[in-house]
């Protein structure tokens, strides 16, 4: 099993290299440079050229790429031009925020979606099922940011239940209070994200359960005299939940995508917002690093899913 995982990771390496070159080139191809944006009378263009030069921005791209790779092997992703800070540290701080939020959203998604999906499937075709299906349809059809914007407006401003910006209150003292404050800040984005994220899980789970309900092994269980309740517990739910567990890895992709929106709407300083800002500042180093990190996270998500799946499903267990 470890061997297989290791092999999978090795296979990823060329993909990551190609991605890095691609991203690097694309970032360079964007019009402007990190210093154009800071146009104000105090900034002497000569000084900007000087800065461009000492940052090697006039070198040919392969040279720049090579330098970047060399630095990368020293654990250095370069400096952010905008934030004048090592990219690793900058992203490190933001990544924690994004991952907090993502983790919370994931947990919440499953807390909401699992009962919903199972309930709907158990009462297939009846009223609760219809209601849940309508819910999933409608949520599927509303663009994510609309959910966010309206959520912020209602729960943040009108009702004032939740904070609307940031990741932590500025006055929270370290310790319990600051953890509490962090949780308080991710509640609303987390709930809204989860509301959106449930759609896939509910639909997937529902069809899994319905398939399982009709399967031969459930008929076998019935013929063993297992009561209906236990059939659901031991056979149907268990068998349909396992593939859902593997879904968690794939959902990383969706969460990361969503982070661009959630963080923008909530001014939540995570990687998504950092990306949007860095785009307008042409902060190459940050853009490159973020795309690469998101790409790697996507890869790891897939890997994670495969691993979970191979753990829970004996049929595809990796030796």
């Amino acid at each position, binding site marked *: 099993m470890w061997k297989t995982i290791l092999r999978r990771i090795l296979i990823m390496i060329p993909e990551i290299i190609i991605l890095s070159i691609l991203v690097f080139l694309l970032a360079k191809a964007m019009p402007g440079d990190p210093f*154009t*944006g800071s146009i104000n009378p*105090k900034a002497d263009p000569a*000084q900007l050229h000087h800065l461009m030069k000492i940052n090697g921005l006039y070198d040919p791209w392969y040279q720049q790429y090579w330098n970047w790779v060399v630095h990368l092997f020293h654990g250095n992703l370069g400096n952010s031009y905008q934030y004048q800070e090592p990219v690793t540290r900058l992203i490190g701080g933001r990544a924690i925020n994004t991952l907090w939020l993502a983790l919370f959203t994931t947990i919440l998604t499953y807390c909401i979606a699992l009962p919903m999906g199972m309930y709907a499937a158990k009462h297939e075709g009846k009223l609760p099922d219809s209601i849940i299906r309508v819910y999933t349809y409608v949520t599927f059809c509303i663009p994510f940011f609309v959910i966010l914007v309206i959520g912020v407006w209602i729960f943040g401003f009108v009702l004032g239940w939740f904070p*609307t*910006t940031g990741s932590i209150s*500025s006055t929270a003292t370290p310790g319990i209070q600051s953890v509490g404050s962090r949780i308080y800040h991710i509640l609303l984005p987390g709930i809204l994200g989860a509301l959106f994220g449930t759609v896939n899980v509910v639909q997937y789970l529902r069809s899994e359960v319905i398939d399982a309900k009709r399967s031969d092994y459930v008929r076998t269980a019935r013929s063993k005299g297992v009561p209906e309740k236990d059939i659901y517990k031991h056979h149907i739910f268990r068998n349909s939940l396992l593939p859902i567990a593997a879904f968690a890895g794939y959902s990383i992709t969706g969460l990361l995508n969503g982070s661009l929106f959630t963080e923008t709407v909530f001014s939540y300083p995570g990687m998504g917002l950092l990306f949007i800002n860095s785009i307008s500042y042409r902060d190459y180093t940050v853009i490159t690093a973020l795309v690469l990190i998101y790409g790697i996270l996507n890869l790891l998500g897939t890997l994670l899913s495969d691993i979970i799946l191979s753990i829970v499903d004996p049929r595809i267990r990796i030796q």
Partner: protein
Amino acid sequence: SNNSSSSSNAAVKFSTTYKNSDATDKTATKNGTLKLALVSNSPFQGITDPQLASNASDSMAFAPGNLNNLFKYDKNYKIISGGLADQKLDRSAKTATITIRKNGKWSNGSPVIAKDIEYAYEVLGNKDSTSSQYSSDFENIEGMAAYHKGTADTISGITMPDGENGKVAVIHFQKMSPSMQFVGNSYISQYIEPYEHIKNIPIAKLASSAPVRKNPIFTGAYKLDKVVEGESTSWSPNKFYYGKKAQIGHITINVVSLNNIDKALQSKKYDSVVPFPAASLGGTDYKNLKNVKGFTNVGEPSLGYSYFAFNLGHFDTKTGKNVEDPSKKMSNKSLRQAMMYALNVDQVSKKFGNGVKQRANTLIPPVFQKYYDKNAAGYALNIKKANKLLDDAGYKKRNGSKWRSDPQGKPLTIHFGAMSSNATTEATYQDYLQQWHKVGLNVKLVNGKPIETNSFYDTLQKPSQNTMDLWLGVWSLSSEPSQSQLYGETAPFNMGHFATAKNTQLINKMNDSSAWNDKSRTKTFKDWQEYMNSQAGVVGEQFSYAWQPVNNRVKGFNISPANDVDFYSNLTLTSSSMK
């Protein structure tokens, strides 16, 4: 009140001060928290060192620390005594002598010393410095050029008569400039660096170092308690502050996005926003916020303005000078004037500015009360005149075309460059295009749509470009009003390459020896404004107010530049909860 706005078409009048008649509630003040919002769409960067910071968010986020400002100044930004240091200029000796007050201390209790002044120049001019604020003007300081190149280890032109730990620093210039009297000039830094605090850190790494980001020290009324990266700062009184002691127990500053600020203030999440001379709550915000209960609005003319510029030549990289090109499409003065007369900026300002914006009648904004020519006519809507100018200059509709062609009879298409922004600005662009179409000029947006900021400046900063014939740009100004860096003959930011002899002469005059005389300098500025208006090479579009609502529990809120140094120490609260 210290109302600087007397422009005829501004609908709203702001006071720079919120005169709160309630009594200060001592306990509420002592235990309370003043909550300020920092309006920005992106997290602030967290660079507390103002010389290294590259955008305004940081200076707002760390404003209660007073950003290591050396000088106190008056409402015209002229340096006066009474700040952390006093400055004395000696024109004959070509020196500036800066003397730190005896009780000047950093917020960690250590004294402010002469080396702190000198080190500011070293940080700025170091060859590895990441600061983008260095400009060739600083090479007016003796030895600065050598230091910047890396051939000298120190700046020979800065001396410390009492030694590094003394209180006096003397700067030797090659040439004195009247602008040195003003804060924000490009010869004398207004900042100091806490040398002892940061001396062990290579200048190249300063911006990312802990003393700058994690545990910075300040000279202002408040000291930093905590910074949540990119999001918020919180402050408490600095007991080492030399001046009036700070009174409010805590100040917090939180980043709030432009989209959310109205709602945030309406729902009383903040007392006010961090005051900043060029910060802008726009006209729409004003419309939404002007009547919110419990708040009073204060404002002063902004340090920024928007302008139309025409592409008139190119930048000669060899000589380092802007050169006009008579063959350019927009070289015809009548054409330029006609285009400006065709616009109804007044209407736009009224509609979208809701009174906090007004048509710019000149290129010096009203915040510079002394220099601003309030009587300049500028370009108010006058279609008839526009048509006449065009007709007279030979821009006629030929062969039944609905568009005017150029005097040679060739079809004329003018490319208008505009930056992408919010819906109202983009509606404004459309309005301008329509106005130009009304006088028969075929004006089109470059690429058919507003251009994203970076691409916009990327195009304009090329030494020579033909993509944009005219464009709408924005300046946020330094508090020193000289124009050489914007419109000077050698200024790379003179992106329209407007460079007549008269212009060069007037701009030089702003800073030559005659300018030491305030009256004479004022006249030069007015002459220049008149000249610029007549040439229509660059024409102001809108001036605006830097305004903000203040909750009525706050007392002592005065955003006049003259109060800048003491702004935070003057604040108190009249109640523990927001009104």
